[in-house]
Each structure stands twice: as structure tokens, then as C-alpha cells.
């Protein structure tokens, strides 16, 4: 094994700026990962050709694959840089920013649309308040275990990056937000507002836009059953649409108590 690591980074000074490749060579350290290599470059930002450059910009925080920050394309595959161990990567290691999100600079992109999608689908349990209102509803361990897995989504963007339905100009929400609807609709209190969230999944960019490529479930670093979530929510939105149609008179008012 070589005692050096060669890294090629696709860089750009921002949207509208041309991109360029820069190559770096650093000493191979035990247990190195892509983050530790980027840190080595920060301490000596000189390319293989000997040109002094600026340290590449990248996002990072937890470095243990629970925050989602450091997602990028590593040897062409979208994943977190912190869990990308150098010993398991072929060289040269190529690093690129995710392509389905607006570029900010170098390896940093803007994933705001994922957080906006969480607003659209109302991904929360609407509690009455933070006062002392006693224990929550009882839940079976089985339901909680499924909800836990769904709830480990760290909004990293891998599922959007690999989705053929997500491209500049398309409105598809993507698997992450759809799966969050399943998470909240399976909570006893959250279920009371299930239809609100399902409506968030209907219409333009909603669950019907899924092309069933199923790339998302393979790309998810947390092993979230995204395709099951999508199938489940597709069924539920269909039921909701029928219910909306049958109950259209009620909705216009007249029946039931006001409010």
C-alpha cells in the first residue's frame, strides 16, 4: 500500500463560476477518512503540482454519520465523508459536490429545499404546549422500533441525489419528506392530523411523482425503508383522495359542528 493518498477535488468559486479539478497528495495516516485528509489539506493547501491554493470549502459537523452535513460524491458515489475510510477507497479519491442541489462553493451545496419540504408536509406532532400535561400515549415496542428507524433520517440528501425524478426545475419532494409523513402519521397523536400531511404529499411534486427507480433505498446511509414508505404513502394518499371526494359536501360546510 502506498504511503500517500491522492485526492482530486472538483472545485468552483460559486454558482456561475467554472469548475476546476485540483489534485492533492497527503501522507497516509492510520484510520484516515476523507475528513482527516481534507484536514491535512487545510494545514498545507498546496496541490500536487506545487501550486498554493485556498483550502477547499466543505461542510462537516458530527463526523460520526448522525448529522448529515458532510455529504458529497466520493468516487462518484453519494455518501458522508466522515464514514468514507481511505483504506476502503480506490485511488485517486475523487470528491465532488452533490449535483442535485444548488452549488454554494467547492463541496458545499444548499439543501434548504429539503427543510422546506418538511414544512410542506407538516413533519411534526402538533402538541398542545410544553406544560406538564402528563405522559404521552402508550405505544407498542414494534411501532416504536419502526418509528425509530424512520426517525433517524438526517436530511443528508443522498436519496434526492440518486433520484432520477429530482433535477433542476422539477418539484418532486423526494423520499426523505415522504418517509417523514409515514413517521408522524404512525404516532398516536400525529395520526390525528394524518390527512393534513397526506395533502402535503398530493399535487405537484408529491408522492405521485415517484418514478419507482428505488435508487433511494440503496443510497440511504441509515437503512431507512424508503421504498416501503413511498408505497405506503402512495396508498394512503389515494385513500385520502377518495375520502376527499366522498366527503366533499361535508367539507363545504353544513354537516357537523362548526370549527
Amino acid at each position: 500500500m502506498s504511503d500517500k493518498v491522492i485526492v482530486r477535488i472538483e472545485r468552483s468559486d460559486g454558482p456561475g463560476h467554472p469548475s476546476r479539478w485540483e489534485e492533492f497528495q497527503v501522507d497516509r495516516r492510520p484510520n484516515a477518512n476523507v475528513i482527516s485528509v481534507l484536514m491535512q489539506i487545510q494545514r498545507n493547501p498546496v496541490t500536487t503540482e506545487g501550486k498554493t491554493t485556498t483550502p477547499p470549502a466543505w461542510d462537516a459537523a458530527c463526523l460520526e454519520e448522525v448529522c448529515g452535513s458532510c455529504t458529497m460524491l466520493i468516487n462518484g458515489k453519494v455518501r458522508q465523508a466522515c464514514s468514507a475510510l481511505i483504506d476502503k477507497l480506490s485511488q485517486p479519491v475523487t470528491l465532488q459536490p452533490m449535483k442535485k442541489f444548488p452549488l454554494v462553493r467547492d463541496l458545499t451545496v444548499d439543501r434548504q429545499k429539503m427543510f422546506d419540504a418538511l414544512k410542506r408536509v407538516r413533519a411534526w406532532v402538533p402538541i398542545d404546549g410544553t406544560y406538564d400535561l402528563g405522559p404521552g400515549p402508550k405505544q407498542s415496542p414494534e411501532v416504536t422500533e419502526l418509528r425509530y428507524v424512520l426517525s433517524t433520517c438526517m436530511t443528508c440528501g443522498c436519496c434526492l441525489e440518486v433520484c432520477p425524478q429530482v433535477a433542476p426545475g422539477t418539484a418532486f419532494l423526494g423520499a426523505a419528506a415522504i418517509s417523514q409523513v409515514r413517521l408522524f402519521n404512525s404516532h398516536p397523536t400525529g395520526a390525528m392530523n394524518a390527512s393534513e400531511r397526506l395533502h402535503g404529499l398530493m399535487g405537484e411534486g408529491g408522492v405521485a411523482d415517484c418514478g419507482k427507480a428505488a435508487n433511494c433505498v440503496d443510497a440511504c446511509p441509515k437503512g431507512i425503508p424508503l421504498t416501503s414508505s413511498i408505497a405506503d404513502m402512495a396508498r394512503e394518499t389515494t385513500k385520502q383522495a377518495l375520502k376527499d371526494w366522498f366527503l366533499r359536501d361535508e367539507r363545504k360546510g353544513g354537516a357537523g359542528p362548526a370549527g
Partner: protein
Amino acid sequence: MAERYIVVGGGLAGLMTVIKLAEAGKHVDVFSIVPVKRSHSVCAQGGINGAVNTKGEGDHPDIHVKDTLKGGDFLAEQPPVKGMCYAAPQIIYLLDRMGVPFNRTSEGLLDFRRFGGTLHHRTAFAGASTGQQLLYALDEQVRRYEHDGLVRKYEYWEYLSFIKDEQGACRGIAALELRTMEIEAFAADAVCLATGGPGIVYGRSTNSTINTGSANGRSYMDGAIYANAEFVQVHPTAIPGEDKHRLMSESARGEGGRVWVPKQKGDKRRGKDIPENERWYFLEEKYPRYGNLVPRDVGSREIFAVVKDLGMGVEGQDAVYLDVSHIPAAILDRKLGGIMEIYEKFQGVDPRHEPMKIFPAVHYSMGGLWCDYEADAKNDMVPGSPRQQRTNIPGLYAAGECDYAYHGANRLGANSLLSCIYAGMIAGPAMISYARNNMKAKGDVPGSLLAAGKKQWDERFNAIYRMSGPENPYVIGQQMGDLMIKSATVVKSNAQLDVALGEIQRLKESWKRCNVLDTGRTVNQSAAYVNQLWNMLEIAHLILKASRLRDESRGSHYKPEFVLPKPKTAKPTDDAEFMAAWKARNDRWLRNSMGTWTPEGPRVEFQELQSLKNPILAPEPRHYD
């Protein structure tokens, strides 16, 4: 005109503060260097404490208070600890109502597990990523308020400093947009800092890269008192890494994990091939009652002694075994899945079948911004008092790891998520009371004050962009980390601290010869880092100075030169000689170190605890064997 509130930091403490403000109908601006969902609270693994007493053990908030105070060797003001422990069960219920997928019993109730420094099952948990799950729950509630127009998020904005008026009160903040590098000043009637701990001052720790402590460092430079800086917790069990040390949660031991080394020094066999009778379970042997669940400072010291003093580390390395391989894999996946994955992913070894190699790593700062509290004669916290969580700067509040308040000289596991949320719960109402009391008297924040705040920082950053010296700031940061690891972790000595105090001055001089590395105005991370680095150097300096001055051993702060003799009786209180020495030590050192910034360096004064005049619990010797 409506009041304006600013919360800096979007971890558990910050978001809970935001929720309390928004719930009262207040408009809040929340500033965070990362999208709040990516804050460091996600790293907390094991759980959150609350004496809910569902296991028939007779647990009670009073016992939680006692465990917490004793765990911190009584260096915490007592009423806030009592308030926290009494609020804990309802906080856990609240999180459950928000939808946190806590592990459940077969009856569908919340499950609880053991943690360090207590003999009760008191820790609610969501797998082994409880912090992530709690943060997401609060993030969701804040998103709801954002959707309703009460909360405005400024993500990718870094706090630079608070803005002070002529009377010395906080009237807003200056902040840097980390993408466009624009600097702006924002007015506020009250500001809460919830900016976390300073782990990155140590280079590599269990902390996220964002935990620079920069906001605290700068606030300290601007007059906020930073208390008990010398108390930095070293967690016994982490996986050493090149970029960071990854935590292996205390819950591994809470669920039955055992710490051991081979009895034969330098044994070359794989851990799983070493028979039971050739393993030395040194914690269980020395601490029969608490076993592997001694408090963290005790655990880290014992591991250090085994590895450094006895040379008994696994294969001669800086490592001991943390073993969960005797626990059925299905239980491990259900209760510890998150950390099983981390070990497997980062070490390439399956901890379900082989013991893990771990070593202590810097983890948590008990010290932080000093803040006040108000309690009644019964030592109950006064609801809505503007003094709760308020720093010595009027209008400036602190909550979460960035405050100094709840953990004394050593934090118990699973008390941090709790203290973050509790501090946020009382900081919000306190800020509202403060603003209401002061708005009329103070009026609107003068535009000139904001303009001056912005101008100061524009000039500072223009100077940073011009820095073209020979020193790489990241190399200085690495040197600072190495120095701090060597001088201020598990075992401290005055000789080494004296050396370190000289070294830190030298690093401060090097900072002045920094090269900014990048003069651009788009995501210029190195310019932001150069600014953070100075603030980190100030915190590092204070940690070293306070460590040097505290000539005793208490909790995480341990100097072999100043250790009490071992009591000669089973119950320490029966040994009169020991008790006399213990009392003399407390008379001198059961005090908060109060750090004030001066241009010549940190000034540290030791101040008696207010609550010891009328304590809930009289201090007692801290023993776990």
C-alpha cells in the same frame, strides 16, 4: 413595539429556549452556524435522566439531586440542580408527547436503563442516538413555529459578539453570514447564548467540528464571566480517530458492557480468544457496588492508571477492552444499535462478537459562562425570574453546555440532555421578564449602537483578510489541541501547566503571524476560522490558568500532588483524620473559579457558592467503592 429576542445556537438548549419564547407568542430570531438539525446535540447517545421510577426501585427526584450533586463533588449551586431533577420526569413525558421514539417496555411504557453514578434505572433512551432523536423533536416543534411565522432562522450565520450599550447591557449581536461573508448587527431586548462547549480547543475530542467555544470565548473577552473552566470531562470510552474521537456511549456499560484488560501484560491473542479467567475486570474489582458504572472521571482515571502507570493496555497500546459480546446481538441492536454501527463502520470489527478497543477522550465542559439563579427560601427556583440563566451582563443569557451551572466538577451521564432542555425551559421565560422590565426604560436599540457594532467587526475581518504571515492557522489549532491534551485532561501537574501557560502565549503570538489562506468572500472558512481560533486560544488560556490555580483534586480536575489521603475506615465519615483533611480542603476549594478576561491574560478568583449558606444537601465525601 413588540420585543425582539435572539437565541444563538440551535442545539437542544437553544431550541428549547426558542420554543418557550414562541409559545408565549414572542418573535424569535435564531442564529446557527449550521442548519439547526445538524447541531452537536445529535451526538449524544445514551439517554436522558429522570426519576420516573417505573422499575419498582423507589427512585425519586431527591435521589437524582443527590446523585447529581455528589457526582459533581458538590461544586454546583443546588437550587438549579433541584429544579432540573424535579422537572426531569415531565421533560421526558413532554419529549414523548412530541413523538420521540423512546424504547418501550412490553406494556408500551417508556423503558429506562442504568447509567453511571447512580444505582437506579433512570435513563430514558431512543436506541443509542437519543440526542439525535431529542434534537429532531425540538427541531420539528421549532419548524412548526417557523411555519407559523414566529421564528426566523438565520442558518449559516456565526455569532461574533454581543453589542453592549453605555450601561453595559446587551442590546443585540453582531453576526457573520458564512456564505457571503457579510457582517450585520441585529437588535434584541434579550439574547441567549446556547452555543455549546469548547471541545475543539483540544483538537480531537468526541465533539463536533463546530464546537469551537468561539462564541463563549468572545463573550468572555467582552466581559462575561466564564466559571469553572478547569473542569473538562474526559469520557472513559471512545474510539481514537484521526479526525475525531468517536464516543462509545456509557449506555454500553449501562446495558451490561464490561471493561477489562488481559491479565498477562502485552498478551498478543485476540480479545475474544482470551479466556474469562485471564481477564482483569479492574473496575468491577475495585468498585464492587458501582462496577463499570462509576462516574466518568473515576472511570477515566482508572483506565489511565491501568494503561499509563501499569503498562497493561491491550497489546501495549493506549487501549482497554469494552466488551458487550456476551449480550445477545438482538438486544444490542435494539438498545445500542447506533453505537454498534459506529464501531463496525469506523473500525471494521463487529462489536457484537469481539470486544471493542477504547480509550478516554475529551468530551464535555462542566465549566462555561457563569449564570445567576433565583430561588425561594425552600430552595425552589422562582418561575419566570429574570435572573434564571442570566450572565453577569444584563440582557445576556446562557443555556446548555455553554453555561456552567448544573454539573459541578463532573457531569453524570445522561444529565446533559436534561440540563440543556431544563436550562432552555427557564431561560425563555426569564428573557421575557427581563425584556418586559427593561423595555420602557431602555427604549429602542439606537441605530448608532448597531452601526458601531457592525463597523467594529467589518474592520476586524478586513484586518483578518489582510493577514499574510507565514503561519497556517489550522496548524496553530492543531498545536493548541496537542498542548491542551498534554496539559489539561485526566492527570494535571503544576509543572506541566506552567510550561503550557508559556506555550499558549507563544501560540497567541503565532496567531498574529497567521496567513488567512483565502481572501475570497464566498464561504471563506479559513477567515472565519482565524477569528474563531483567537477566541479558542483565549478559552484555552483560561482553562490552563484556572487549572494551574486550583490546587486540589475534585471531579474531573485531578492533580496527584493534591489528593486527599484514603480514609482508613469503610465509611469515610468514621475517620476523623480524613474528615478533618476533607473539611479543610472544602473550606479552601469548594468554590467556583470565576474567570475574567484582561488584556494581560485571565484573572481567576475563587468564589463561595451562594447556595451552601442554606444547602439542600450538606456536602459529603465522594466515594463509590
